[in-house]
């Protein structure tokens, strides 16, 4: 293990990888700052570049983009009350009032410090917990993996929000359906290719991500010019200084929120959004009356808590992805797809078979958070100018980078036509309130769920007896069932109460 850790340190500290880290953090901050373009879009836009790099460098770049995008989202939340992503909505509750009171610089500094602390604490916990979980996962059979994937898919659908479960479930099924296009892996039989040679290898993951996130987001912005437009002009930044007393005041919330954020991030589907709201609510309850009254009016605690929690959760979500090969969120699903494209299969064997990639990613998290604090914070006044780029130029450029990014991978114009079709469908579905993240998750997990189920059935002589013969499989499937029916039970209870 120590050899792997030292190799990871050596890889992460190489000049090239530090360069990619800086580029990733800066690009992520830039993209994350644009309202509507979240970490998923940011990572999707970076995949064409990352695919030309070594696996460790590519994944370091994408992880840096992820943190950068969350940090960028906080910046637009604080400065213009336009959260770039859902996970930074809670940051705007107190960040924007601080900005309005003329403390924009201080708010950004507190956000950066809290994010840094959250990221560092969570990366430390990841360092300890990832190998433990990976060792445990080595005892898993195909049937357990099948059950775990079902749990992951169901959890993501269940966490999408009130009344959205069936929509998210339907999008997950749609993602699974799209994953079946192409040649069947075991029997070599073409499926849903419609006689087109271009579909024999299936639908490209990058193509689907670009179409459903980057392009559909740009098309929605074209249709609705008010979408994500800032409420006010960018505030003039004031001093970034934070006093010792203020630092002392925010330390306990940061520590508590970092821990809770990491554990929420571990849960499939929960992610940074739930972690940030949970941390905000918890800190509000923890605060004394005077401090509680400040929440929503520019409380530094109210800003520090969600900021540290969302960054810690982002780190925590890497644990199931790296150790089980099961992504807990849409963002890690995209990263998982990128790893598979490299020919690397994340799972319990990853830290044994690819120790450099595994440890370099973990080490790069510390470096990434340091880069965000040291480099990005002073650059914020300049980066914030991006918000003034006219949308008349920005939107066609997003379309161009998305189209050319996919074209450069295959040099096949069919991909551009297919992307256009998918983007149109994504716009229609998004205007009807159907979420896209479960679709990507379903698409990524489609091949794995089919393969593991097929293998489990083969091992048990074409019998479903593994469900009751293996207690772990049965328990996980029962848990998945409970997660699926829980929202229904809750709403039934509320209805009965109301009567």
């Amino acid at each position: 293990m120590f050899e792997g850790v030292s190799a990871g340190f050596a890889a992460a500290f190489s000049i090239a990888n530090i360069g990619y880290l800086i580029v990733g953090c800066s690009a992520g901050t830039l993209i994350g700052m644009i309202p509507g373009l979240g970490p998923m879009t940011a990572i999707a836009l970076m995949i064409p570049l990352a695919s030309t790099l070594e696996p460790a460098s590519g994944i370091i770049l994408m992880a840096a983009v992820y943190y950068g995008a969350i940090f960028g989202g906080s910046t637009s939340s604080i400065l213009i009350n336009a959260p770039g992503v859902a996970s930074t909505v809670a940051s705007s509750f107190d960040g924007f009032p601080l900005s309005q009171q003329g403390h924009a610089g201080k708010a950004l500094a507190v956000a950066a410090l809290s994010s840094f602390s959250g990221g560092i604490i969570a990366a430390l916990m990841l360092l300890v917990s990832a190998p433990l979980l990976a060792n445990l996962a080595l005892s898993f059979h195909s049937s357990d993996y099948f059950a775990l994937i079902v749990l992951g898919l169901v959890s993501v659908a269940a966490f999408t929000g009130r009344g959205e479960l069936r929509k998210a479930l339907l999008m997950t099924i749609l993602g699974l359906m799209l994953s079946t296009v192409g040649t069947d892996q075991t029997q070599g039989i073409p499926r849903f290719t419609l006689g087109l040679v271009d579909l024999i290898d299936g639908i490209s993951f990058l193509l689907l991500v670009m179409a459903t996130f980057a392009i559909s987001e740009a098309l929605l912005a074209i249709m609705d010019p008010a979408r994500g437009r800032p409420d006010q002009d960018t505030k003039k930044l004031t001093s970034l200084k934070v006093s010792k007393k203020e630092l002392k005041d925010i330390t306990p919330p940061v520590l508590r929120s970092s821990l809770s954020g990491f554990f929420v991030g571990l849960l499939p589907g929960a992610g940074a959004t739930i972690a940030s709201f949970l941390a905000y609510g918890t800190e509000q309850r923890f605060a004394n009356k005077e401090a509680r009254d400040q929440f929503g009016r520019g409380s530094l605690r109210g800003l520090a808590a969600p900021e540290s929690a969302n960054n810690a959760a982002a780190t925590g979500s890497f644990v199931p992805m790296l150790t089980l090969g099961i992504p807990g969120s849409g963002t890690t699903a995209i990263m998982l797809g990128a790893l598979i494209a490299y020919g690397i299969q994340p799972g319990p064997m990853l830290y044994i078979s690819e120790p450099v990639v595994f440890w370099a990613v973990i080490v790069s998290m510390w470096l990434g958070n340091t880069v965000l604090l040291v480099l990005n914070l002073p650059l914020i006044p300049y980066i914030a100018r991006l918000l003034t780029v006219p949308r008349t130029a920005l939107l066609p450029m997003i379309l161009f980078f998305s189209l050319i990014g996919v074209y450069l991978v295959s040099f096949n114009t069919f991909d551009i036509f297919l992307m256009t079709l998918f983007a149109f469908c994504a716009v229609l579905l998004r205007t009807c309130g159907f979420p896209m993240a479960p679709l990507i998750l379903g698409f990524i997990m489609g091949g794995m769920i089919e393969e593991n189920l097929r293998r489990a059935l083969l091992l048990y002589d074409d019998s479903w007896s593994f469900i009751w013969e293996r207690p772990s499989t049965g328990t996980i499937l029962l848990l998945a069932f409970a997660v699926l029916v829980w929202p229904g039970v809750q709403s039934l209870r509320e209805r009965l109460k109301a009567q």
Partner: protein
Amino acid sequence: MNSDRFKVRAFDTRTGALLLFVFCCAYTWQAFEILQINHTTALFTASSMPRFLGFLGMAVSLHLILFPGASSEYVAPPPLRRWLLMGAFLLLMISYGFALRPLGFMLSTSAFLAAGMYLLGQRSFVAFVSAAVIVPGLFWLLLTQVMGVYFPLWPMAT
């Protein structure tokens, strides 16, 4: 995760569910067309999962059509001209796909960006030059000179 919850919802849930129901029906029909290996006794074949997914998708979408739930809030759909504008962009993207090889990267990209900016109401000559000429030029240089990806700038002789 579902950022659209905070934004526009033009149609109600039923419309989306109906679209997906039609797709699921077509998918299920196609799932039954998947070739089967003769004399196979395996319980799980290439068409097993697609068939299951097809029926599951039909059931969930049908449930959403019949019981859309209280979450489907109605917001007035964007005006027709906005849909037409999006349609124009879709056509532009398809045209870009057709033009990329015969016109080469530079001409097709500049035309794509300039047309996109024009459609969105941009009329400044400086903005056109900087976005439609300088950006693709710099991108091409980055691609070919830094990343070492071969990509012809101008139309290739056939």
